[in-house]
């Protein structure tokens, strides 16, 4: 069963002399529970594609179905609702909120979803335990190493139990041992049933996914539609 389908999706900016294309005729299908890597040189459209998939960019043409819902027919409020329900984000630079402790950073997405306090506390405690960061729960981001920060960022991304986890170069700012730890974590989440799409420049980490989509100048070069659909 496919989680998302892109059909003839295109994105461009108007220029005085014509249009600057960012994404061209993207056709892509990703199954529920897949682990997909997106690769390509700088400017190929990787991050743009991730923004479209993450419902952060609405300025495109074509068709995008997420969990059976045609995204292009939704108004901004509905899009945000869909994003809240289905998607979690991991950023290259972690983007933890500096003024909030680890525990509060994890709590924040649940706050925004009006999850009752008792359930929030339980889920935060559960995740702190699972990610083995209980001892760090009262520390602030500035008191953590890069790897620890990304660990918290991943925990924060999955605390809402998203169906789809979008990771924009999750290991890009980390040294190798920390990067390995994060990749292991992604594998673990994938094994638990989370669909993951990661953008990465790291060939080895990319190949750890079930499928690699390669972009070039906004076009899908390879891997747009998988042969098995289950990854």
């Amino acid at each position: 069963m496919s989680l998302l389908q892109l059909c003839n999706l295109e994105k461009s900016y108007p220029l005085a002399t014509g249009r600057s294309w960012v994404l061209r005729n993207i056709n892509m299908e990703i199954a529920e529970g897949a682990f997909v890597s997106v690769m390509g040189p700088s400017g190929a459209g990787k991050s743009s594609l991730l923004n479209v998939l993450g419902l952060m960019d609405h300025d495109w043409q074509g068709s995008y179905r997420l969990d059976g819902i045609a995204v292009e027919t939704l108004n901004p409020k509905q899009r945000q609702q869909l994003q809240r329900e289905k998607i979690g984000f991991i950023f290259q630079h972690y983007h933890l909120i500096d003024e909030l402790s680890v525990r509060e950073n994890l709590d924040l997405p649940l706050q925004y979803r009006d999850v009752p306090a008792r359930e929030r506390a339980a889920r935060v405690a559960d995740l702190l335990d699972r990610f083995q960061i209980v001892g760090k729960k009262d520390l602030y981001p500035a008191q953590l190493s890069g790897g620890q920060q990304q660990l918290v960022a991943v925990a924060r991304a999955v605390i809402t139990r998203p169906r789809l986890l979008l990771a924009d170069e999750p290991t890009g700012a980390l040294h190798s041992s920390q990067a390995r730890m994060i990749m292991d974590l992604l594998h673990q989440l994938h094994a638990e049933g989370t669909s993951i799409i990661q953008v990465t420049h790291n060939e080895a980490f990319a190949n750890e996914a079930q499928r690699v989509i390669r972009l070039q100048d906004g076009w899908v070069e390879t891997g747009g539609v998988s042969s098995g659909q289950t990854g």
Partner: protein
Amino acid sequence: MKAFAFELRGAARTIAAQPAFSALVVGVLAAGLACVMFMLVVLSALVIRPLPFAQPERLLHLGIASSDRSDELGDVGDRDLLDWQRQLATLAEVSGFQQMTVNLGDAAGTERYAGAQLTSNLLDVLKVVPQLGRGFVAADGQPGAAPTVLLSDSLWRNRFNADASIIGRTLRVNARDAIVIGVMPAQFSYPYKEKVWLAGSLDASATRGDGSEWAVVARLRDGATPAAVNAALSAWRMEAAKADPVAFEQLTTGAEPLSWLFIDAGTRGILNVMLIAVLLVLLVACANAANLMLTRALARRQELAVRSALGASRARLVLQLLCQSMLLSLLAAAIALPLGWLGAHWVDLVFRTSEQDGPPTWMHFSVDANLILLTVLAALGTGLITGLLPALRAGSGVNQALRDDSRAVAGGAFARISRGLVIGEIALSCVLLVSAGVMVRGINGFAHNDFGIQPGHLLSARVGLPELGEGEGAQQVARFERITERLRNEPGVVDAAAGTTLPGLIASGTRVIADGAATDAPRTFVYSGAIDDHFAATFGLTLEQGRLFDSRDRADSTPVAIVDRTFAERFGDAGPVLGRRFTLDPDESDHSTVTVVGVIARTQLDDLDDPVRPALLVPMRQQPARFASLAVRTAGDPEAFAPRLIEIVRELEPDAPAYWVRGYERVIAEAVFGLRVVSRMFTVFGLIALFLAAAGLYGVLAFTVRERTREIGVRRALGAPAGQVLASLVGRGSVQVGIGLLLGLALGWPFARLLVGSFNGFDPTEPLVYALVLGVLALVALLAILVPARRALRIDPVIALRHE
């Protein structure tokens, strides 16, 4: 609600995490709110708080006014007041009072007090009952009745040791025996700071324009309205005009809330302008804080984008930023409240210690629960205004911030809004500073302006002789001559004089027509006074033509006058005024015709801030008076002679102590006391606005420079000289400053005109003020630009390029 509490906690943490930024915003808002709080204190005391009488909304002040100044209701004579009591009987109970000097004597000596004469029903109208004894009844004050007197609580306590047996005791009141019939409650000092009250009677046979004049106070009867009273007064005026068309030609009647009697139209006008000024200060503060918040929200766009990606709705992001601005505003209010309280305390002290007629003692400049609530509401409103713009701007398009890793977030609409706010701040500061400058310059001018006298080495005092009965005019003249002669014989005294006027402070108003003019010729209002032969020399009046008064001008000789140059110019069309005759108060039964024997230089007899009007002086021998000013020109410090003057007057006139004994330079300072207070307030408002504009400019430019640190590093690394980079930064800020100053100057002139237009001696176009304001603002702005710009230049290009 949970979301609100959560965001409030988050806002508190953000504020604590950025102490310098938070302190700047709180300081800026506190400055604006303190001004508002202070103004609320003033307005509350003068306008908002009801009069301390039962059902104060039913109390009215009635009066007669010139048609062209119908908002300045004046007093009425005995006959008109009696008419009104009859005419309005079904609508209101009508009473009257007149302020007077009371010389109160007993075995311990005679002291002068501020007092008032009341119609017997005034206390009933005010619904005030004495704490001891009784109030006035209709029989009190009637011809032939034993004089009666009421004492204030403070006088009773301080002079008579709260002796309850004071009731029924006889005191000397203005040289006559009077029986104390009651002691008024504490705090009662009606109308202003009075301590003694006498019963007055209305003389039905008095001719209009003669005799005493009464301020009229009425209490509406049940069901009656002010409009009905106004209509009844208009009907009376129509009837009265039929009988006396000349007197009523340019007169109208009116009823206004009694509180307006104490806060006249001029004061209300000043209060309005001050309120506008304070709101301008708050507006500057809001613009400033909004700008700072905007820059901070810009810097936080990526964080907001992350929050959005984590599921925060736009409304939630707006709420987050609004919570922050609201909390900052409340912190500012917490600082503004004690500052406002201090301001209230200051203005209360200033008025209480002033010898001038300030507001009544029952008007308290104090902070109460309502004021605190209003200030908190103002703070919340300020927080909303301050936070809404940054919140709405920063809450939109946050995803763009997450997608763009670019640091160039200060461009586009944000920069335009920010620049607009800075321009607005500078313009508003300019308006306030120009107004303050015009006020200060005008008031300082009073101290140095030539208004016709030489105030140095001059001591003045007032003396009110007791009523002397038949033939009192000659006696009054003789008694004042006796005092001044004695003063002139004192060592260190150069000259001494008596006269009814105190130039720059006290004068009478007289209507004048040239002798022989048609009876319906327009009357010219002039300031006038009666003076003795030494007055001109003592005050240093400058004779330009003719002669001064001397022994030729006796009570029975031809009535003569000296006029000033303004008078000569006003009547100069028909030739030189010297030797010409003029009729004084032609509509009154005791009008007189005088011949001009001298012309003196331009002299301002009445209040310095009143419009310049012609001045006319007559010999005291030809127009004697019970009340006169004494003036002593001394060789040394005039204030040092004050005790001796008091002693001499006490010796010669035991029932008429000298009061208001002051050096003339102090007299002038106090003459413009109210304006000086207003001018100080404006100066404070202007300086606060200047501080706000500087802080705002600095804050925004510092942020811009910080955002451009990397760009500056690139430019420097590419070889741009420091001067060029500095010029580019300064140039960018200077354009905003320039536009702000131009706008401020364009708005400052009409605002200053609105503020001082009705006062004499102020020039809203004074070039020096504009030049100074421009210079100061430009300098402050330049410093605000240079400090962050120089800091950016000191950074090593290599470090700047690494700047995150």
